[in-house]
């Protein structure tokens, strides 16, 4: 046990004396957080105050299911300060929009609905467009029903207690707290640094060989399992300390929001560090020499990029990019932390999947490393 601690302490000392480690693990993420967090403030601001919105409507349809549905749609939206006005004779709707007298202009015909927006009120325009899209999606679903059972159609558009405001919700005017850019990057950078632990762990064994200290270590009476355990422990502590510093810095210096359960958030990050260190070690046993460093660097960079370290990524659709996104450990941790900080689900259900996935992978990778270590001569 003493030996494990001595070796762990040596590893930690080594890393904190290395200026490159400090630069990469501390200065880089903090600076990046500052730059991205400040530069992209607008892209993230979701709490723009939306005043009353006015939409001009021109109905040239001759009744029918679409018109009926639209009527109930507009009626429902009145409650949320979006007012629909029917156009007067002789007024040009497009001109009204151009003059910025309305936030949107809709033309309802028998064949469908057209929406015109206004550049000067882009956000309002987006909201209206989003709601209209939600409406048409619902309508299309309903019209499929209509073909079979026309009688039920009107019922589907009757505002019920549960359906109340459902259009609005889908346009993301969410009552809950949303991350600002600094909040987002505080999480993203901390998670990224957690994964970078794989890089330093990948060098744990190799560095002893390169420095020439491997023979001397093997010549001591310390068992290789102790050496291994000490190195893993040291690397986990050192990398987690870096993550912790980044988290605390973002919280107290930049005022980033870390939610109500900082302890659990740190636990998620710790599990990520454990997984990363195991990954680095495993890869360094599987691929000899410099190749392992290259593979880890590539993996960490791709995972950072696709996992949302530099910009948010969405996971909808089914194209190739999304598989990459899902395969990024950064994505799991990001997702778990976002759920934990902003989500409504319980702390346990937010944190547990990521933690168990990380620890499970770590056990697997360490086992692989141990098998390879036993077969090797020397370190």
């Amino acid at each position, binding site marked *: 046990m003493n030996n494990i601690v*001595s070796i762990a302490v040596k590893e930690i*000392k080594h890393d904190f004396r290395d200026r490159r480690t400090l630069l990469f693990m501390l200065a880089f993420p903090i600076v990046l957080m500052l730059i991205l967090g400040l530069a992209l403030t607008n892209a993230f601001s979701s709490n723009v105050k939306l005043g009353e919105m006015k939409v001009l409507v021109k109905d040239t349809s001759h009744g029918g299911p679409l018109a009926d549905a639209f009527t109930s749609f507009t009626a429902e939206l009145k409650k949320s300060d979006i007012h629909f006005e029917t156009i007067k004779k002789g007024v040009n709707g497009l001109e009204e929009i151009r003059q910025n007298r309305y936030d949107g202009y809709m033309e309802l015909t028998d064949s469908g609905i057209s929406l015109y927006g206004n550049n000067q009120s882009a956000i309002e325009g987006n909201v209206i467009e989003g709601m209209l899209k939600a409406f048409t999606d619902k309508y299309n679903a309903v019209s499929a029903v209509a073909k079979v059972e026309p009688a039920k159609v009107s019922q589907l558009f009757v505002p019920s207690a549960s359906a109340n405001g459902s259009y609005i919700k889908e346009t993301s005017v969410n009552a809950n707290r949303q991350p600002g850019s600094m909040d987002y990057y505080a999480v993203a950078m901390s998670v990224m640094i957690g994964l970078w632990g794989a890089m330093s762990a990948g060098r744990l064994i190799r560095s002893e060989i390169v*420095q020439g200290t491997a*023979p*001397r270590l093997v010549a001591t*009476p*310390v068992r290789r399992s102790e050496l291994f355990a000490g190195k893993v422990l040291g690397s986990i502590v050192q990398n987690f300390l870096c993550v912790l510093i980044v988290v605390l810095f973002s919280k107290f210096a930049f005022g980033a929001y870390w939610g109500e359960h900082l302890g659990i958030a740190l636990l998620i990050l710790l599990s990520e560090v454990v997984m990363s260190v195991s990954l680095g070690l495993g890869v360094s046993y599987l691929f000899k020499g410099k190749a392992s460093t290259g593979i880890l660097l590539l993996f960490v960079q791709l995972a950072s990029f696709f996992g949302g370290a530099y910009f948010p990524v969405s996971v909808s659709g089914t194209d190739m990019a999304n598989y990459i996104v899902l395969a990024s450990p950064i994505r799991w941790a990001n997702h778990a932390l976002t759920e934990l900080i902003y989500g409504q689900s319980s702390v346990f259900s937010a944190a547990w999947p990521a933690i168990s996935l990380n620890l499970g992978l770590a056990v697997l990778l360490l086992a692989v490393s141990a098998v390879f270590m036993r077969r090797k001569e*020397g370190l």
Partner: protein
Amino acid sequence: MNVLDIRGLTKKFGNFIAVDNISLSIREGEIFGFLGANGAGKSTTINMIASLLRPSSGEILILDRDIAKQSRFAKMNLGMVPQDLAIYEDMTSYENVSFFAGLYGLRGTELKDRTEEALQFVGLADKAKSYPRDFSGGMKRRLNIACALAHKPKLIIMDEPTVGIDPQSRNYILNSVRKLNEDGCTIIYTSHYMEEVEEICSRIAIVDHGKIIAEGTKEQLTATITDMKDIRIEVKSLTDVPADQLRLIPGVRTVRLDEMEPVIRIHSDAAVDNLNRILKELIASGAEIRSVEEQEPNLETVFLTLTGRNLRD
């Protein structure tokens, strides 16, 4: 008592046999020298003794105990100075020695005292708080030795501890080796510097192609080759020396020109009287002779005779 016994030791790397069926015993209190050219198998042998490599076959006993069966005992009694520097550049001298000593189970004040003692011993006490990255080659070599001493091993193995350092540091290290020996340590010393081995070792093994081809004290080894002689001719300049012609003279085995002095060294069969012919050839070529000397055979002669090669080419 034998500190080390090696029986039928062999190491293969694939099909290549690096160490070939070596047997050897080293008694307590010896400074035992391993002499051999590059690639002879010195480090491979030593690395097996230090449990860094697994023997392909054969046995190694340290203080009469098999190291394969009692590895901890063997390691506790062994101090290893690897051929390549084995120190952490980003830890101070003190931290380096103390870290390794700690892995041998030393704790607390004992650890502190032994660490200081080891640094003192190699003359680095005033550099305890300095980082080896700022050290000269000689200082690094000395620290490399200190890291093997703090746990007071019975047997210390030094694999070329003086490679690439200044004469002053080399003398310091050679004196340290003698002092360690006087304090009761048994030492295995490898080198391809003939003079060092001649100077400090009480017994020497000459290793070539993985085999021990001769073993004994310096006197025993040189006594085996009465049939050879070494001629040392000092000249004004080496430019006119007809080395190729000299090599054709009957009896002459090798001719070496030493730029530093400048000196011609000729290794020849003792039975052939060829000194006159050699001198005649030199005079004819216009070389100006300063002195001629026939030397006692030394380890270099032994090596040359046994292997047909110079130790360092």
